[in-house]
């Protein structure tokens, strides 16, 4: 008898202006990853090394927007994913990278590449392949519609698991006391 295989949901993940800490925390769901891969199949993600995002059910974004490439990738994810999740403080409110927002970009680049001690003959990188930095770092909901937010720096593996399993079972995701953290 033929076994009908349940169609798996497609999930893509990426890290924009983040530190990959949220992806590390995602791996902290530990052995529950085995349960997860029964339910989902990964598309573009650091876990698969697929470079372009295809049609997906769920897109998970770590990090905010600090350069033009971040914006490009975010728009691609929004176009391709039915449900878009902002994972972690940087995606949710800009996080640590956004703490540069009160400083003029030229001043930052000059301090980092020209005037800091130890940078003999320093120059501001200008290779055309490098994406241009934005004047300010923005959380992703300021550019695209975001369906689900998982705050935290990083959100715990348990918080990520709770949101994913809520979503996969068709419920509105919620985090109660102890799981909801902004730090």
């Amino acid at each position: 008898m033929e076994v009908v295989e349940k169609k798996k949901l497609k999930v893509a993940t990426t890290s924009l202006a983040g530190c990959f800490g949220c992806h590390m925390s995602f791996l902290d769901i530990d052995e529950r990853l085995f349960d997860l891969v029964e339910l989902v199949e990964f598309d573009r993600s650091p876990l698969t090394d697929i470079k372009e995002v295809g049609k997906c059910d769920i897109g998970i974004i770590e990090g905010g927007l600090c350069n033009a490439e971040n914006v490009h990738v975010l728009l691609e994810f929004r176009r391709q994913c039915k449900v878009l999740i902002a994972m972690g403080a940087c995606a949710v409110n800009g996080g640590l990278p956004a703490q540069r927002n009160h400083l003029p970009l030229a001043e930052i680049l000059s301090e980092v590449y020209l005037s800091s001690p130890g940078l003999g003959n320093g120059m501001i990188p200008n290779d055309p392949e490098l994406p241009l930095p934005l004047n300010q770092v923005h959380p992703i909901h300021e550019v695209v519609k975001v369906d689900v937010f998982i705050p935290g720096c990083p959100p715990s593996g348990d918080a990520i698991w709770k949101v994913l399993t809520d979503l996969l079972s068709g419920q509105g995701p919620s985090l109660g006391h102890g799981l909801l953290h902004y730090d």
Partner: protein
Amino acid sequence: MTQTFTLDGQEIPFTPGQTIIQAALAAGVFIPHLCYHPEFKPHGSCKLCTVKVNGRHTASCTFKANTGLQVESNTEELNAERRTLVQMLFVEGNHFCPSCEKSGNCQLQATAYDLGMMSPHFDHFFPDRPVDASHPELLLDFNRCILCSLCVRASRDVDGKSVFALADRGIQSHLIVNAESGQLADTNVSVDDKAVQVCPVGVILRKRQGFVVPIGERTYDELPISGHVHGAVTLTEES
């Protein structure tokens, strides 16, 4: 006979002169609040404690309890409005919890958790607000100020110093220091002042005390802020 009013279907006793929030907290019923503090005259500005009294919105920290009032507080509608208010506070300032030493002891953060705030929703202002580290014992980080005026009231009414004030109006409102230089070091503020103890967020901080109590063992780690009804009566920093 004890006089009572009805709060979310529950009879709340009060003594004449008490406000709705005073009577509710005394009865162990939590109403979210930020600028209200039991030891100070109400300011009525944060609007978090807004309830419906006989169907009309009003701040429960300024409205006097009265016999037979029908008060709604813990409803989906009012909590959604409170969540929006908190979201506006978050985007108006620079509230980066991961790098804030008040995290876990912060009433703004704890209130947002309690209201289930999952995102800031609005566009961020990312205002430019330099910190004042001039004082040897205290740090002032204006990025986190929510204009509750508790330090203003405490410094004026308890410490008798008027070290702090709110300047300008509307969206321009901001906390200032009462010194010609504008620097905290040039005031007679002291670490023992009530004004220093009372900040509900991470603006007025004792230097070198930030992580004496580790993250994970702080005021709102074990119990959400709504579970601190009796504990919340004295809002000392490291209790």
